[in-house]
């Protein structure tokens, strides 16, 4: 995100900050190679965000003007009327109805001039009529799902930065942080340029915030309710944002990426997406976000194959809470190694995976395919201290899904 350096003052500020940081080089991590002293709202990329940008600059200039007047008066009185300057107090100057009226009315008038353009933008933002297309956005702990109603495409989108770049307290990151650190996703939302896109924002669990500043959208997804909001991207490009409402442990790790494509490229993407995620949104619930392919039907499944596939599913979906060691982070995130649920009857574990555990951070993973659930269960039953020698088949999952 490049800052818009609308005036020289910001250049000066950035330069000042840069020199401060040079002074601190000994403290500075390699990340500084990407030094970005942004001091303003990112370049707008939609009519609404352009209006927001303009409004903000306008209010900022008005505030700057008031600032100059108020601080000039304040510092004038501090310097002029200090005792060391020989100033004698004028104790009778402590009441004036006229002055009180003046400094009540002037701010009121200034506010009117702020309210008028703001009102216009509010009405524009709220006008979600006549969309060219509609996308349903669902927040999850911790990722997003996009369902394109007309195109009949639906898919999940979650953080693709590997944990090896993030690290752990007491455990340094083993990989250097990439340039899109924490702002990259596996499957971005894709929209055509210049079209009115209406978003229906909701959530599957807790409140999330779908926030992409350059498109002028920041909308809570509230479980059980659908709120609508719209944007129209002015230009082709990639626009990034993050979840804006605290939603639990990995709130900081659920970025949003919107890729805006030309109409032709968008059509191409739709075709590819259909092939990949196929079918209608409802059926797509069973589509796989992870790169674990379901083996051909009829091929006999072995424990070794299932466990190997399960390890990948585990790494993509479970590891952040239950940890690679299977020890979890009790008590919030219980251990799977030695867990009664994992070692106990298969039905119990399938039930938790399909339905989640209400009142805890354990969400439903019904969105995984039957094969993936079977694989990850087999993995948990045969890893760490667990060695049941048992494996679970996709048919077990299918049976349970139906009941």
């Amino acid at each position, binding site marked *: 995100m490049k800052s818009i350096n609308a005036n020289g003052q910001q250049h000066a500020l950035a330069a000042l900050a840069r020199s401060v940081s040079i002074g601190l080089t000994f403290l500075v991590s390699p990340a500084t190679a990407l030094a970005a002293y942004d001091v303003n709202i990112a370049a707008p990329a939609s009519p609404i965000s352009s209006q927001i940008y303009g409004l903000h600059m306008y209010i900022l200039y008005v505030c700057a003007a008031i600032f100059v007047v108020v601080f000039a008066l304040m510092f004038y*009185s501090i310097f002029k009327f200090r005792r060391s300057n020989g100033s004698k107090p004028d104790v009778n100057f402590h009441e004036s109805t006229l002055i009180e009226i003046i400094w009540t009315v002037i701010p009121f008038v200034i506010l009117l001039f702020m309210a008028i353009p703001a009102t216009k933008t509010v009405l524009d933002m709220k006008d979600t009529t006549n969309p060219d297309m509609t996308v349903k956005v669902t927040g999850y702990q911790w990722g997003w799902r996009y369902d394109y109603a007309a195109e009949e495409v639906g898919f999940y989108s979650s953080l693709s930065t590997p944990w090896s770049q993030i690290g752990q307290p007491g455990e340094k990151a083993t990989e250097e942080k990439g340039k899109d650190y924490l702002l990259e996703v596996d499957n971005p939302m894709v929209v055509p340029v210049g079209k009115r896109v209406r978003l229906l924002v909701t959530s599957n669990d807790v409140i999330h915030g779908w926030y992409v500043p350059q498109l002028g959208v*920041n909308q809570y997804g509230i479980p059980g309710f659908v709120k609508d909001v719209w944007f129209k991207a002015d230009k082709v490009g990639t626009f990034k944002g993050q979840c804006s409402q605290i939603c639990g442990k990995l709130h*900081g790790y659920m970025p949003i990426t919107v890729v805006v494509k030309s109409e032709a490229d968008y059509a191409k993407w739709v075709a590819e997406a259909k092939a990949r995620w196929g079918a209608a949104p409802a059926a797509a619930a069973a589509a796989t976000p992870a790169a674990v392919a379901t083996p051909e039907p009829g091929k006999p499944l072995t424990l070794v194959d299932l466990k190997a596939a399960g390890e990948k599913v585990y790494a993509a979906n479970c590891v952040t809470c239950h940890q690679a060691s299977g020890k979890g982070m009790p008590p919030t995130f219980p251990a799977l190694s030695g867990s009664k649920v994992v070692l106990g009857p298969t039905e119990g574990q399938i039930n938790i995976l399909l339905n989640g555990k209400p009142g805890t951070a354990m969400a439903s993973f019904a969105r995984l395919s039957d094969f993936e659930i079977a694989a990850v269960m087999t993995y948990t039953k045969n890893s760490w201290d667990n060695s049941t020698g048992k494996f679970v088949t996709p048919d077990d999952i299918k049976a349970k899904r139906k009941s």
Partner: protein
Amino acid sequence: MASVTTHDHAHDHGHDHDHHGPGPWTRIFTTTNHKDIGSMYLWFSLLMFFVGGAMALLIRAELFTPGLQVVQPEVFNSLTTVHALVMIFGAVMPAFVGFANWLIPLQIGAADMAFPRMNNWSFWLMIPATVLLMASFFVPGGAAASGWTLYPPLSTQGGIGVDMTIIAIHILGASSIMGSINIITTILNMRAPGMTLMRMPMFVWTWLITAYLIIAVMPVLAGCITMLLTDRHFGTAFFNAAGGGDPTMFMHIFWFFGHPEVYILILPAFGIMSQIIPTFSRKPLFGYASMVYATASIAILSFIVWGHHMFTVGMPAAGQLFFMYATMLIAVPTGVKIFNWIATMWRGSITFETPMLFAIGFLCMFTLGGFSGLVLSIVPVDITLHNTYYVVAHFHYVLFPGAIWALMAGVYFWLPKWTGRMYNETLGKWHFWLSAISFNVTFFPQHFLGLAGMPRRIPDYALQFAEWNMISTIGAFALGFSQLLFVYNVFSCIRSGEKAKERQWDSADSLEWTHLPSPVPYHTFEMPPDLRGAKAVH
């Protein structure tokens, strides 16, 4: 403050029942003296200020560079949650109640608070509440991690720590309500003859209005978190759509409490400012009556602006516009206050002792916080800045140099009266300048982070936010450690400060300065002073 240890002789002065005086420990538990209780409130809030500050430094340490280094994300969320609760309910509110206890009886010429035993009880209630809140870090599931606003359904997910937090807030709320009943009753019934309402010092006025705010909104908060508790354990569905409830309703109820709460934290600070600025300008407060009306207007407006905390829930345009206009309107009475303070300095004879430095710092920084507040009142701009660091910067500009500096200015201002000793002026000035610089280093860059789109309450961030975060963290540590100067100054003042004069500040004109020696005796105004016909004391 020193009265706790050094004024046993003062018992001779009074004819109370504990003539022989209880031991120091018994006295701490049983005292009903407004000065003892005021001191206890102040010490307690000072302790909590450092507890909350330590959490803030852990947060800033984690944010020093990108990546996870210091705490797990879940613990980080608990830290931001409890930092806010501790600072609001443990540090700022009790500190102002401490000032109210110490000063209201002295400034209106009353012998004590109206309900001394309830006064004792409202202090001691805070201890179990705080223990509950802090202990929640060590229970299975950890402390509440949903942000201090406790929005469901996230807060319904947490463990027993959330229940402990809810109970703690209940108890603290009860304590605040009792304190407010006491303050209102004292002010309305126990003023000395001639101390009419429109002659009361501004500090008393602001507390009278604040106390009404507390009584109006604390029960709302109590209802709100009780519904949360029953949703969690007793199968209700107030905030669960699956059962016919609505998470948005929680936000409405919470912020109906939450916005007046903001003014609960700042109105008494306005009161302290309105006493310090005239004193060091050697002029009466400019526009006393309009200051009273402005305070009341702010209080009334505070009930109709709560929606501006939730512009992104998807409320209708009419709702957004109403809350935007109402919010902008608050700038008018707040501006009146700022202008009146400047006019108070105008044609004055200003000196710059530590309390005045903090007061001027308050004026400058609070005005900046007001500007960012105005920016945030504009709905479209708020939507792009909602839940970003811009908001964090905004409320720290109004709460740290606002509420906290007012408290510190007040401590420096009244310490000579309370202890009979002077603090160290040089150290006080160092404290001010270090705080002023490091505060701005900490929080000014957070405006930039917010504008660039960095969300709040995240333990880790994208690389483009790295530079300002690092600078902010450096500032935060400097700011935190600068506050130790304050503690040292207060302790050394009590132990070995120079003797203070009865009227340490030559033009301070409220009753504690004009009618009472320094230090103030343990019992004061057993016979109310007769102020009929005397000149106004503000």
